[in-house]
């Protein structure tokens, strides 16, 4: 089966899975969350149909007064998913006030490890969790520490929209975010969820985190492109995680070294996020 047919089948599933409020849950008929909503919209963007339009309006309407997006509509707390909303705006080429406020929130949000108490504690016992405290990225939630996945998503978002961001903080945040990712790289060349060494013990990398970090760092001079592609390919071959393979496929397309023919969507499919990412992998919208 060819890519296009399979991708359309996934897009059909996504269209059928839209909740009555216009957004998506992680599974059809479940509570709306903005993470699967953004992925579904990114995958459906090329179709530009009524389903996309309803979802787009729902997503935009969920923005908080702070400029952030919450994990789910109605929650008052800002969330890392703001990065996905910005990537979606960049994909759609919408650079309006909603977009600008979201970007401003991202640029003002940083990992909690920049706090003086944390730095003091880290200074006292640096071997507990080894990281360079000069480099901060983005947290899952404001007020907590930087981790690989939200940092990678935010870097991808900011870089995809950089031509339309005029905030003077942009360059420095991207630079420090990239340095943070490079600093957290595991000895095996990939990325764990956030740490490389705890109590002196090396941590193994995860394929999901590795894929996201490599997407975020693509083109960075600190990254050896062919070696990165080889690592992603090895991890793709080694993992049986559907989610990891979906991320790695996107990564390999970004690095220009792989195009996949997707297998048909399974009967009884329920995973909106994985399906959307697989569809994106065949279209490479996100990357």
């Amino acid at each position, binding site marked *: 089966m060819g890519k296009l047919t399979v991708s359309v089948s996934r897009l059909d599933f996504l269209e059928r899975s839209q909740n009555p409020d216009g957004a998506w849950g992680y*599974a059809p008929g479940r509570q709306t*969350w903005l993470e699967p909503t953004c992925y579904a919209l990114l995958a459906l963007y090329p179709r530009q149909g009524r389903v996309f339009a309803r979802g787009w309006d729902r997503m935009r309407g969920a923005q908080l007064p702070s400029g952030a997006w919450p994990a789910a509509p109605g929650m008052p707390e800002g969330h890392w998913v703001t990065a996905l909303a910005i990537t979606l705006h960049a994909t759609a080429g919408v650079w309006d006030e909603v977009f600008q406020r979201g970007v401003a929130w991202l640029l003002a949000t940083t990992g909690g*490890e920049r*706090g003086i108490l944390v730095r003091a504690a880290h200074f*006292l016992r640096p071997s507990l969790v080894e990281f360079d405290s000069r480099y901060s990225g983005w947290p899952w939630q404001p007020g*907590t520490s930087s981790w690989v*996945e939200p940092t990678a998503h935010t870097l991808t978002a900011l870089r995809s929209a950089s031509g339309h961001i005029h905030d003077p903080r942009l360059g420095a945040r991207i630079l420090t975010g990239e340095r943070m990712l490079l600093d957290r790289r595991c000895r095996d060349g990939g990325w764990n969820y956030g740490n490389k060494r705890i109590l002196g013990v090396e941590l193994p990398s995860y394929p999901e985190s590795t894929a996201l970090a490599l997407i975020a760092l693509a083109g960075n001079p600190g990254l050896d492109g062919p070696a990165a592609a080889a690592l992603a390919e090895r991890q793709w071959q080694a993992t049986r995680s559907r989610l990891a393979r979906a991320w790695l496929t996107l990564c390999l397309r970004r690095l220009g070294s792989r195009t996949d023919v997707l297998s048909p969507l399974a009967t009884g499919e329920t*995973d909106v996020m994985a399906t959307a990412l697989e569809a994106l992998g065949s279209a490479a919208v996100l990357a």
Partner: protein
Amino acid sequence: MISETALQSRDHRERLISRRGFLAATVALTGCAPTSRAPGPPGRSSVTILRAASYNADLADLLLRGAAACHLDVRGKRVLLKPNLVEFDSSTAVNTHATIVAAALEVFTKLGAAEVRIGEGPGHRRDTIFLAEEAGYRRGIPDFDRRFIDLNRDDVAAVNGFAGEQRFYLPRTALSADIIVSLAKMKTHHWAGATLAMKNFFGVVPGAIYGWPKNRLHYIGIHRSVLALYRVFPRSFAIVDGITGMEGNGPIQGSPKPAGVVVMGHDLVAVDATCCRIMGIDPDQIEYLRLAGVLGHTAAGEIDQRGETLQSVRTNFALPAEFRHARLA
């Protein structure tokens, strides 16, 4: 060095500093933290210790005997089994063994539960179904896919009063269960000392909001979060898989430790304190147990041991470097 003033404001500081800072501060504090135990509740608790040499034993029969010893009544109740499925590494014993989960499913069904579901929200890896596959859950647990709910992605509701948080979100599947069974693994833990029935509830917290890892819990403070979660889910029961536990650099990178026991009880504080004694850990050196207060009993004299005696099953687990002081005399 950390000053006395800083010690006194520990709760406040835990909320201010990051996981890394908190961990560093916590460990720096370990040697000088107060060791007095908060007074427990009135009455006594009972904990059942059962011997099981391997996962090939008749575990359903074993758990049935344990349930009877604990006077467990789940007739007509909606039961949520919460195993410890955190990461998979074939070289060690990270997760609650699939055969224990399968046996618990069989037992709670046999005991007349109206519904038995299985739920977990792993704290490191995002692909929960992949972890369940790797850990043998999908092959070894009947009807797993229909019964299982990924708590990281479940519908949620806000609760008030969780460790001082204005709002804290928890999965509806867990909040609506009549009883949550903490199917924990007996492991040492490099930050908490031990991870047993109570800390297993970290897996209930939804990653869709709090991330991977669930870093908000580290900011609140690991021990404070353990206690706050138990306050939210007091209708619980514990089954701790110590047939093969983990020692050393747990909860992920330690070594398998055959202890040959399953520990059960209604009072999760008492179960955890008993597990600590089996592992050769002084429960008074585990902060969440020391602070448990009215939530349950930790003193050996207030816990009726059923089944095997503590002395007959004690097997010292190698302790993480930061907890060497916690060895039970």
